[in-house]
């Protein structure tokens, strides 16, 4: 227990880095993911093709391999913005494919009949999308997007072996110094990740509740 208290500032520092990694990679993932999802459901064939290739390529490559390509490949061709940009780009690209697929499933999950009915009562296309399809799609994607972001939080632990002093890096440092307190260290670091994940779950729950259909 003492080991956690004595090293609290080091551990918090590590989780601060973990949070930064999550937020920056998550932002990349959401932006790219939305664009790719739009490409995948768009009526333009070439965009659909691009979206499909992008998802196939990056969703099927292990994250570790994407990171290694970023770390060793990019500096080789003269691009070396540093560890943090490299790893967040790699994690952002990887995660964006899952976001894109979650969004696509949400949009496709709204029955075609809904849009047809809206058009039938005279709604224009824009209104059909904003008033009928997207609100229902939005509700459908909250749980899968939350899961993807939760997975991202845990994936950031790979950064500990790629030059970034985040929570897992701190854990391994502490394990080396305090061989007698292994269980407390695992417990404390594990708890830190649980807290971050629970915050994401809670936000997802609140959004879901807000958007819930009230049946009467």
């Amino acid at each position: 227990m003492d080991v956690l208290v004595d090293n609290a500032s080091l551990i918090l520092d590590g989780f601060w880095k973990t949070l930064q990694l999550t937020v920056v990679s998550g932002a990349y993932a959401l932006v790219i993911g939305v664009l790719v999802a739009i490409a995948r459901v768009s009526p333009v064939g070439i965009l659909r093709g691009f979206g499909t290739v992008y998802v196939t390529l990056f969703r099927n490559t292990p994250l570790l391999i994407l990171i290694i390509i970023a770390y060793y490949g990019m500096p080789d061709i003269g691009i070396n913005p540093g560890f943090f940009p490299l790893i967040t780009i790699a994690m952002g690209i990887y995660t964006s494919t899952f976001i894109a697929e979650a969004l696509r499933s949400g949009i496709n999950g709204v029955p075609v009949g809904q849009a047809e009915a809206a058009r039938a009562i005279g709604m224009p296309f824009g209104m059909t999308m904003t008033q009928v399809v997207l609100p229902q799609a939005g509700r459908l994607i909250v749980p899968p997007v939350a899961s993807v972001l939760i997975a991202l939080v845990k994936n950031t632990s790979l950064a500990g072996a790629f030059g970034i002093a985040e929570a897992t890096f701190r854990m391994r440092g502490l394990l080396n110094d305090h061989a007698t307190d292994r269980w407390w260290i695992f417990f404390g670091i594990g708890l830190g990740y649980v807290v971050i994940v629970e915050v994401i779950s809670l936000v997802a729950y609140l959004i879901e509740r807000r958007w819930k259909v009230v049946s009467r």
Partner: protein
Amino acid sequence: MKISTRFAALGAAALLTLAACGDAGDDTTEAADNDYEVVDSPEFDAGTRMAEIAEAGKVKIGVKFDQPGIGFKAAGSDEPTGFDPEMGKILAGQLGLEPKDIEWVETISDNREPFLQNGTVDFVLASYSITDERRQVVGQAGPYYLTGQQLLVAADSDIKGPEDLKGQKVCSVTGSTPIKTIEEKYDVTPAGFDTYSECVEQLKNGSVDAVTTDGSILLGYAAQDPDALKVVGEPFSEERYGIGYSKDSPELCTFINDSLTKAFEDGSWEDAFDATLGKSGNEVPEAPKLDACA
């Protein structure tokens, strides 16, 4: 069929590339051909761990696979080379075992204590610094070698010692003692990787400013690539390499110390050093004084 041949060709090409990368191609990683004494049917008290190992005719020794000069296994080779494996052979010889009876297990900084505790290995000789914390969970006999933390930098770098490092990125193995020491003492940005070889790669492509760990390890890397890398500064810590063993068998301590004393006296320790670390231009140091067994 056509496709499968093409893939086979690709695979072969990839393998060749890998082999080319793994080939360090200089004498710090070549096997030393020293012969150490192998005791003919050694006598141990019944029930001791030494008797068990000698009886089984097989010993599992954990060494590093990525530290040229200390413990290194080249791609495609069967046996690790370096000072630690040589010491392992000396130790095995005292148990009446030939080098071929040794099973080499790769240990990294993180898993040395667990491997000893759960019996994955019988001994750890993996640049394993003796510390009080570690001695609470495993046994560490020795030391058999003294070294200190130094810096490896690019050959054209201005860094002359640890004082020049403030705010710079310094690479070492995640979870190791050197990375903690450098962060605490010299206020650097720590960059952790899984192996020292990855750190050296990051140093070569300019992502980090220095690599730090025990001087003996760094000298091995500098010797592999003297045009690109150099070791700078005086050692700023004292590391005492010990031989790890399980606390369940405290009798091993006396055995290890006796074997080391013998190796210091009959010159085999010096031979092991000359054939490995000595190649990067190091003088044979004085034999360290052993800690007494509890």
